[in-house]
């Protein structure tokens, strides 16, 4: 009997072994995100939702691994030719959904289009050109030595140049990127990715089917069909999972974490995120904020641990700096410094013992619990006699106010598109300069040219160790200067039914690699 069974199992293994993995992709996955992709044109907007779509229907040259390393995808190898040039070898025999074969000219087409895209052109500014050497070799050239070359290459998802070239029946250019109104690319898609879009009703559902000709036959993914439904209401999304209506949801609201953890049919995965939530102290509006002692006092008055534990219910990692762990600038020695007595002492030394009144603004539907966090911060400031006049607004109205720097303290959350520390400084602490666009979101008007100089130096330093040391120093100096009030990094959470193995495909960038998803 035993031998018979072994023989049977053996023959099964033999029979299945030569078959490509993708042939077995027969599972169906129903998933619910809080929103569906705004367009099918992945260059129309740089946002989490669009990147999630990119990873489902396209493949990047290289992609981030779980521990923030790189793994080859469409580029199978790369080597540095000189200071400004990186040469990539393209994988051969990769087909687009349309049937066209991927070559270096598609990568060039994509690169040129990215340089046109309003959302991406800033990220691709350091690059001067993409040089095609032959069908499967190309070089990325930067104007100066650029340490984030590979980080940026994760944003290059080659498009099917033949498919996106030419005119539509109504005479529109197929490669056009349009922010409003319809373009060819916003409704048609041809990538190399694991899924083909088979149906889409915006705001209602998107249907995907596994691409038969997908190049990555090593991928363990066995999902043949995906139905994505946007469910905006947190409660409804969680209910849909608990009632078995969907198999996978994201994001999971902090209030429901316990409920899902207790549910015996569901799995919950959480991760410390990379989005920093912070307050700026506007030195142009408030004279007192020019005094480093006052800023330091505020830094001492804020209880980050308390906010993370009580308001965020443990769904956040308290922060004393901008760079999260894993980023080059993350400085382990910086700790949160909650100490009310010290804060009061500093206010006294600065000559503001009796305090003053300031205005504060925060969004109320942009970040997790944003309005409650703002209320807590206002209450904490009251203890050092700073009276806060708080106003919270829906995000659509908040950002115009933010651009106008309409309050003395304003909240912002920031995720570095490059997954690198320097991006935080460039947007949030650089001396504001309307012409160059640096410090675009620096609502504190904090300005320290020395620090900016150091970051700029780090941006052309390709020696990783040296660069890390520089960025750590930047983080330290911003901390000593109390340039802003860091609060926490918002955690990420996903949940699925037990048979959907989401853990291996999730990452801190929040683009699940659904092509590799295994459903049991």
């Amino acid at each position, binding site marked *: 009997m035993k031998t018979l069974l072994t023989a049977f199992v053996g023959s099964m293994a033999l029979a299945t072994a030569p078959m490509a993995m993708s042939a077995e992709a027969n599972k169906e996955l129903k998933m619910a995100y809080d929103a569906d992709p705004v367009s099918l044109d992945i260059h129309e907007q740089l946002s989490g939702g669009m990147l999630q779509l990119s990873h489902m229907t396209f493949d990047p040259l290289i992609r981030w691994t779980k521990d923030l390393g790189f793994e080859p995808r469409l580029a199978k190898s790369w080597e540095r030719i000189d200071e400004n040039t990186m040469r990539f070898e393209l994988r051969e025999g990769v087909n687009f959904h349309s049937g066209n074969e991927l070559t270096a000219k598609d990568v060039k087409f994509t690169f040129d289009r990215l340089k046109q895209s309003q*959302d991406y*052109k800033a990220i691709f500014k350091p690059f001067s050109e993409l040089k095609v050497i032959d069908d499967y070799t190309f070089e990325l050239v930067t104007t100066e030595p650029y340490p984030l070359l590979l980080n940026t290459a994760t944003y290059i998802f080659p498009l099917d140049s033949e498919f996106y070239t030419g005119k539509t029946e109504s005479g529109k250019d197929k490669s056009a990127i349009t922010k409003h109104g319809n373009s060819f690319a916003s409704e048609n898609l041809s990538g190399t990715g694991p899924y083909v879009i088979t149906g889409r009703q915006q705001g209602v559902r998107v249907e995907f089917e596994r691409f038969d000709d997908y190049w990555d036959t090593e991928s363990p993914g066995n999902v043949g069909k995906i139905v994505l439904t946007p469910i905006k209401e947190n409660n409804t999304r969680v209910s849909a999972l608990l009632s078995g209506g969907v198999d996978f949801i994201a994001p999971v609201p902090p209030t429901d974490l316990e409920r899902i953890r207790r549910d015996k049919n569901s799995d919950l995965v959480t991760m410390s995120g990379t989005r920093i939530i912070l307050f700026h102290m506007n030195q142009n509006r408030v004279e007192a904020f020019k005094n480093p002692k006052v800023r330091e006092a505020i830094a001492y008055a804020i209880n980050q641990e308390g906010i993370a534990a009580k308001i965020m219910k443990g769904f956040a990692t308290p922060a004393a700096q901008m760079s999260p762990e894993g980023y080059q600038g993350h400085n382990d020695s910086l700790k949160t410094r909650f100490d009310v007595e010290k804060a009061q002492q500093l206010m006294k030394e600065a000559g503001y013992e009796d305090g003053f009144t300031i205005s504060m603004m925060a969004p109320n539907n942009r970040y997790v619990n944003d309005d409650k966090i703002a209320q807590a911060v206002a209450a904490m400031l009251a203890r050092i006699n700073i009276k806060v006049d708080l106003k919270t607004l829906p995000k659509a109205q908040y950002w115009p106010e933010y651009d106008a720097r309409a309050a003395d303290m304003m909240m912002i959350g920031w995720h570095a598109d490059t997954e690198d520390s320097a991006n935080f400084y460039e947007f949030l602490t650089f001396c504001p300069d309307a012409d160059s666009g640096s410090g675009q979101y620096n609502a504190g008007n904090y300005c320290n040219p020395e620090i900016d100089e150091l970051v700029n130096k780090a941006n052309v330093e390709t020696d990783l160790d040296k660069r890390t040391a520089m960025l750590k120093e930047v983080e330290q100096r911003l901390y000593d200067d109390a340039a802003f009030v860091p609060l926490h990094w918002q955690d990420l959470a996903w949940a699925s039914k037990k048979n959907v193995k989401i853990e291996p495909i999730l990452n801190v960038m929040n683009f699940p690699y659904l092509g590799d998803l295994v459903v049991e």
Partner: protein
Amino acid sequence: MLAFLVQRISQAVLVMFVISVIAFAIQDGLGDPLQQMVGMSVSQDEREAIREEMGLNDPLVVQYVRFAGNALQGDLGISYFYGKPTMDVILEHLPATLELVIGASLIIIIFSVPIGVFAAIRPQAWLSKFFMGVSTVGISIPVFLTAIVLIQIFSIGVTVDWFPQDAGWGQWLNAALSTEGGLPSYGRGDDLTPLFGTWESGFFSQGGLLHLILPSVSLASIMLPLFIRLIRAEMMEVLQSDYIRYARAKGLSSSRVYFLHALKNTMLPVITVGGVQIGIMVAYTILTETVFQWPGVGLMFLEAITRSDIPLIVAYLMVVGLIFVITNTVVDLIYGLVNPTVKLTGKKA
């Protein structure tokens, strides 16, 4: 009759004009549409260029004149988010909302008339008192809460273990109070039947009907108690009137008295209120659709607001205004049919 319709149509035009002006005037308060269209790191210069291209930098009056000119030709603009003409977007979402309203109305009619009539005929019966009690509770619970409770009980299911499981009665009570769940909690499902145009119906398939149950019940829960109470009160009043006494004295069967003579006059004010309430129900669909992720115009409108999709907001408000005017006109017409003594304004006596 013709004069009446002309009067109503001119009223409708006025209503639409006022709505469009108001919607345009408040658009600055609705936030910046660009925020939803570009990533955070896009520079101010780029934003300015897009704004210019979209005509957002023009003075409001210029924008309004441009809008009104197009509107007169039947073009209500292009939604920023959907990238399609706003009327197309609304027509795509409207069937879902109408089906939800139809479902809720059916529930209301099926339950309110018998219960209301019964409560009026037998005001002292314990069943009447029970219905009145429940309706008081029902009228005071917000639709959001009703929906969440319904989802918990009928979609997710509840396991009750308050009673001792080893005792027979405890086991029975636990089982009786626990629910299996399983009813769909979001959306309209996969198997919709295409009717015509953009209308895909959920009324002709099991899946579609199952998806309709919870949202319709939630939406009906706000109006049902109101109608039960209204029918009961009107019916009781009618039953006191002389012609009913005369009918009884004449020896007519009580079912003929109640359901022919009394009910007909009871329904007059109910139709008036009903017409207005259908309009209000469209407004309530915003809440119900949000909780159930029902892809109708209510949800679409709410999302348009969070995205500052101004063309879509303006178009939605105008369409809803039109629905109000139409329902009121239809109600007035029906009113005339039910009670010939009522004269339509504008109709020559």
